[in-house]
């Protein structure tokens, strides 16, 4: 537990986010006025080029996975198109010992974290397991029940801190997830016990068909932090420069201060909820068009090209790398999921009850 001396920032004004989202780039990728940057410094070219590379790869991954879902190679695919700055910025801000807690919409972040792209699609392919080893990769299984993984992130970072390890957890959640009780409970626990977790809300404005206005009446989701004594930050989630700067700072803060941070990245879900959803039933195409002009990948690309940090050869090289990754997941998902029936019994318990073993024998006999 924290002592009173550990309470670093409890004054309301210091915890409140900026009244408008922090941003560096305008919609065309030009550097905007300094007073919109919330006091954050521009990340290095090196950091931004790495961000760009992964965002381009992530976009291609997302396009390929969406196509594979339409072809029936994936059981379902929730696209994160338009959210690449968050998917990439959230992961690149972490050190190798830190933990990532993604949701079902964050498969791109798994790939950025270094998980094999075919393995990363195990769950969405219709496997009964997440595919990768969460402990080895320090990536929790993608969570489907909204916000329920947020207390897990608190537990992981807390347990690491007890051992004196310098571990930060980054937990992704959507705007819909902030309405869940576990969002509240996780922020509250993290604040009370001084646990270094960065809660990254990717506010993409839609929870399937329910718009943000029905999730909350708060001035911003980031402003919810103050109610817990948690520092809140609001950022333009389609501005990769701002997202990169802010999340690097949030992780640094969480680590140094042993305190949680709540970051709301204002972005937009460009595709329907999943390939099984029809977004024409609840939103206008014109709304999507508005956000198309704020596309995070082309915005960062324009900026880097304009500054001279990125040249056509680099763009071509990234495109080639993206294409080979797309080919890899196409090949990797070409076969059907064919595991033996034994597998679905194998890991339910360390010491399974006899009844389970009898059912297993029956199923195997019938196979």
């Amino acid at each position, binding site marked *: *537990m924290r002592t009173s001396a550990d309470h670093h920032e409890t004054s309301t004004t210091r915890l409140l986010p900026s009244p408008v989202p922090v941003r560096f780039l305008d919609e065309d990728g030009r550097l905007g006025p300094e007073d919109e940057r919330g006091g954050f410094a521009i990340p290095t070219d090196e950091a931004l080029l790495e961000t760009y590379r992964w965002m381009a790869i992530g976009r291609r991954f997302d396009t390929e996975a969406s196509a594979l879902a339409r072809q029936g190679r994936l059981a379902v695919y929730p696209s994160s198109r338009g959210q690449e700055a968050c998917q990439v910025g959230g992961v690149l801000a972490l050190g190798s010992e830190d933990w990532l807690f993604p949701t079902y919409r964050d498969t791109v972040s798994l790939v950025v974290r270094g998980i094999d792209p075919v393995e990363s699609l195990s769950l969405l392919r219709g496997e009964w397991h997440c595919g990768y080893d969460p402990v080895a990769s320090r990536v929790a299984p993608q969570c489907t029940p909204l916000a329920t993984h947020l207390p897990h992130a608190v537990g992981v970072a807390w347990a*690491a801190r007890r051992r004196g390890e310098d571990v930060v957890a980054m937990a992704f959640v959507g705007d819909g997830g902030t309405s869940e009780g576990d969002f509240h409970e996780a922020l509250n626990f993290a604040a009370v016990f001084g646990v270094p977790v960065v809660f990254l809300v990717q506010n993409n404005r839609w929870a399937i068909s329910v718009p943000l206005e029905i999730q909350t009446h708060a001035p911003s989701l980031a402003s919810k932090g103050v109610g817990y004594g948690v520092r809140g930050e609001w950022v333009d989630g389609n501005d990769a420069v701002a997202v990169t700067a802010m999340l690097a700072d949030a992780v640094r803060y969480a680590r140094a201060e042993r305190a949680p941070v709540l970051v709301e990245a204002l972005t937009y879900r460009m595709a329907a909820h999943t390939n099984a959803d029809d977004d024409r039933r609840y939103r206008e195409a014109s709304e999507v068009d508005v956000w198309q002009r704020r596309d995070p990948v082309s915005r960062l690309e324009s900026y880097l090209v304009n500054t001279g940090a990125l040249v056509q050869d680099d763009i071509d090289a990234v495109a080639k790398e993206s294409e080979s990754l797309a080919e890899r997941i196409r090949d990797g998902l070409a076969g059907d999921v064919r595991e033996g029936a034994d597998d679905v019994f194998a890991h339910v318990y360390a010491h399974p009850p006899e009844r389970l073993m009898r059912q297993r024998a029956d199923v195997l006999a019938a196979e």
Partner: protein
Amino acid sequence: MVTMVQALNRALGDAMRADPSVVVFGEDVGTLGGVFRVTDGLTKEFGPDRCFDTPLAESGIVGVAVGMAMQGLRPVVEMQFDAFAYPAFEQVASHVAKLRNRTRGAVQTPIVIRVPYGGGIGGVEHHSDSSEGLYAQVPGLKVSTPATVSDAYVLLREAIADPDPVVFFEPKRLYWSTAEIDLPASAPGSGRAEIRRPGSDVTLMTYGPSVPLALEAADAATAELGLDVEVLDLRTLVPLDEASIIDSISRTGRGVVVTEAPSFAGPAAEIAALAHEHCFYSLAAPIRRVTGLDIPYPPPAYEHHYLPSVERILDTLLDLEWEEPFTRAA
């Protein structure tokens, strides 16, 4: 003389001494020592790092325990009262129970969720539920419930050592029951039923708070009806000691399941079905159930209607297709 609360408290303390990865947390478990004093003295002995109070948020408590388990800790969390555990049900059913499977064994959840449960204590609403059936139906969980002071110690130690998650139901009504034993107690391991009273005419299958009641009913049945009644204490619902149930019913040919949990789709239904499926040719009468009623647990003045009683058990025993009808002694 040892009470069940003392046995549980000693089990927690011994487990914490034996394994530094055991941590205890929940509502009022720290300074106060728990509303039933089960965690009394643990914060003092092991420090606030190992036994501590949390915000009043059951889902958060269990969810944080999941994260701690992912880091190799063995959290033991208290839900304070049966009905107050419901907010955590999603964490228990969707994560505690499934994380091992979802990660092919890479992540284990050796978590113990302690739930003081059951009625007969004159509690106001939401303080007397028997919810063990809800958890017993979730694959991935184990469910234990001691009836004796020795079992309270032994089964809790086993639950904490178990690599699988255990929902540990503590019968509130028996918290202050006593036994002439020395701690640490010894008893058979989990997954094994115990015959508390051997008999040859009929088997009462029961667990937790209903075990002393079944023993009382068995004595009354002998005195009033001349029946030789066996009492089988199941001790753990998951895993269920099916062999002991089958063995006992095959010998006696008659059985009654006694639980405080409501009858419909409850543990008693599962146990009765098991006995019918496996002992059909040994049965002289259908397996019967004496359970809580299918109503919300009633307030203190009404709980005698709800709870299984010696009277209801005897009436049910009388009804078991005996060759010569019984008349009850006055």
